[in-house]
């Protein structure tokens, strides 16, 4: 279920992830020996084209955040390849990695934890410039002003400290920091899920505008499909460390194939109380990634599971052009 055949595209690939795995050892006993592995990400493959937004969706604990961090090598993947502009960055030396880090940035979920409380906004935004030795003092100052302007903040906000801002404003500061080095790829790790609903759309619109303006490519991680729909060109759905479905945004919303994707969609509230619909509720909880179910990992909660699902791992196949799914029956 891990090998992806290439997606037919017209745009050049920026990021190509192949069979990515990240296992965390579980230690126990008095000598803290390894007693098991949490398979947070267990063989994920996908590609992101230049200028595109790939939405990565799944429940908490499905490995989507770990995938995002492994792509940036913030956690070291256990196996697989992460190709950025055709080169496998997992083989890069520390020096090469430092250079490529300018091209790829991250926006965090928690706007309160992602900014150093002891730094002013100026220091926070110019920090990446200092690390990469870009510009002198006044040039950096100028750049900080530009960036604040780009994300909709005023230059007088520079002297202030993070605690003086609201969640939405802090997220804008985090975005400005991510843009400082003019990256090509941005991993947005649930950038709006900690914000008020009224602020969410502002930030999403900002991210879209920035994409247009700077030709950014997003790997957009979210746990709900309603946010993803807003911004993604394509959507990939993860369950328990593996990918179960990937397709164009419109396609996956109109014709989801995997039963898990269907269940996720039926969880989106419809703003119409008159409308009756059958809500698909999945029984049970997500199984532990330390002991994933045999066969298809979803079979313990799947409404259409058969005996075959318990033993046989479903293949990752292109069911329709550009629409990938890992299910025996779809």
């Amino acid at each position, binding site marked *: 279920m891990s090998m992806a055949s290439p997606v037919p595209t017209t745009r050049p690939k920026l990021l190509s992830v192949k069979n990515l795995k990240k296992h965390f050892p579980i230690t126990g006993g008095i000598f803290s020996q390894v007693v098991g592995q949490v398979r947070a990400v267990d063989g994920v493959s996908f590609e992101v084209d230049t200028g595109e937004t790939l939405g990565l969706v799944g429940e908490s604990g499905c490995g989507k955040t770990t995938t995002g961090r492994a792509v*940036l090598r913030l956690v070291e993947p256990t196996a697989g390849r992460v190709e950025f502009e055709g080169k496998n960055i997992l083989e890069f030396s520390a020096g090469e990695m*430092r250079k490529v*880090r300018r091209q*790829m940035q991250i926006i*965090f979920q*928690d706007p309160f934890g*992602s900014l150093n409380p002891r*730094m002013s906004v100026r220091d926070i935004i110019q*920090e990446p410039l200092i*690390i990469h030795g870009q510009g002198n003092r006044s040039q950096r100052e100028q750049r900080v002003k530009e960036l604040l302007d780009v994300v909709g903040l005023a230059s007088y906000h520079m002297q202030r400290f993070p605690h003086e801002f609201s969640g939405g404003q802090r997220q804008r500061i985090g975005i400005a920091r991510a843009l400082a080095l003019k990256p090509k790829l941005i991993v947005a790790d649930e950038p709006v899920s900690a914000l008020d609903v009224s602020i969410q759309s502002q930030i999403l619109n900002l991210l879209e505008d920035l994409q247009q303006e700077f030709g950014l490519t997003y790997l957009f991680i979210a746990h709900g499909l309603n946010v993803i729909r807003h911004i993604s060109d394509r959507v990939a759905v993860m369950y328990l460390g593996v990918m179960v479905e990937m397709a164009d945004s419109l396609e996956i919303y109109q014709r989801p194939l995997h039963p898990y994707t269907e269940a996720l969609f039926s969880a989106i509230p419809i703003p119409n109380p008159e409308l009756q619909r059958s809500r698909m509720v999945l029984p049970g909880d997500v199984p532990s990634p330390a002991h994933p179910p045999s066969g298809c990992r979803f079979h313990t909660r799947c409404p259409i599971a058969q005996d075959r699902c318990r033993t046989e791992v479903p293949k990752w196949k292109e069911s329709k052009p550009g629409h990938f799914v890992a299910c025996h029956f779809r």
Partner: protein
Amino acid sequence: MGKLGIFGLTFILLFTFVGPLIYRVSPDTTNLLYLMSPPTLKYPLGTDALGRNYLARVMVGGQLSLIVGFVSAFASMVIGVIYGLISGYAGGYVDGIMMRIIDILLTIPGLFILLLLDAMFSPSAFVLIFIIAFTSWFSISRLVRSEVLSVKQRDYVEAARAFGASTWHIMTRELLPNVMGTVMVATTFQVAAAIITIATLSFLGLGLPPPTPNWGELLNSSMSYMYQDAWWLIYPPGICLLITMMSFNFISEALQGVFDSRL
């Protein structure tokens, strides 16, 4: 309480450092006509067994206690911060080994190390600072290490790593400023503890050599006259120590509130 602490500390600092400039009496001059004199107008705190002006001695006696206290607390802070930063940030085996070293050092009773080192090196203010710093950095480094363990998980540290920040940059720019609150609180306590340690050593006769007085030594030499009701020899240095201790404890408690850190 913080205000009370600042007030107390200001009083002690003025008393010990500005006091001798105003009350210009030598603490070492003996007056054989006034041995063991109770407080009088001429000798506001009386005299000791050698007829020396006790007020002058208590004032000057604070200087060394406070200087050695501050400097040794600062030194143990520096050692503790560096050790704790490295241990906490490195994690894994390095952290394990570094913390076990502290565990081993902590099994040796502090007073024992103090007495041993004190016997090995002839005591001077400099040696005393070194000895106190050496025996008191463990707790600060443990605190720093545990703070670092939590701070290094924060997203802003991850963000710095995502920019390609060096270990040095992360330690000095991201971790250090965020553990300094706790460090300040702990160091304030440490100053008080160091002053008590000096007093203890001097009280045991192992502190700083005469003639420069310090509060512990004053208490020590006054002990012999307790039965002669020489209360003026006991209370002044004792009260000075008490005010100093309480001031530092009040201040560090107030700092804990400011930095919102828990010890």
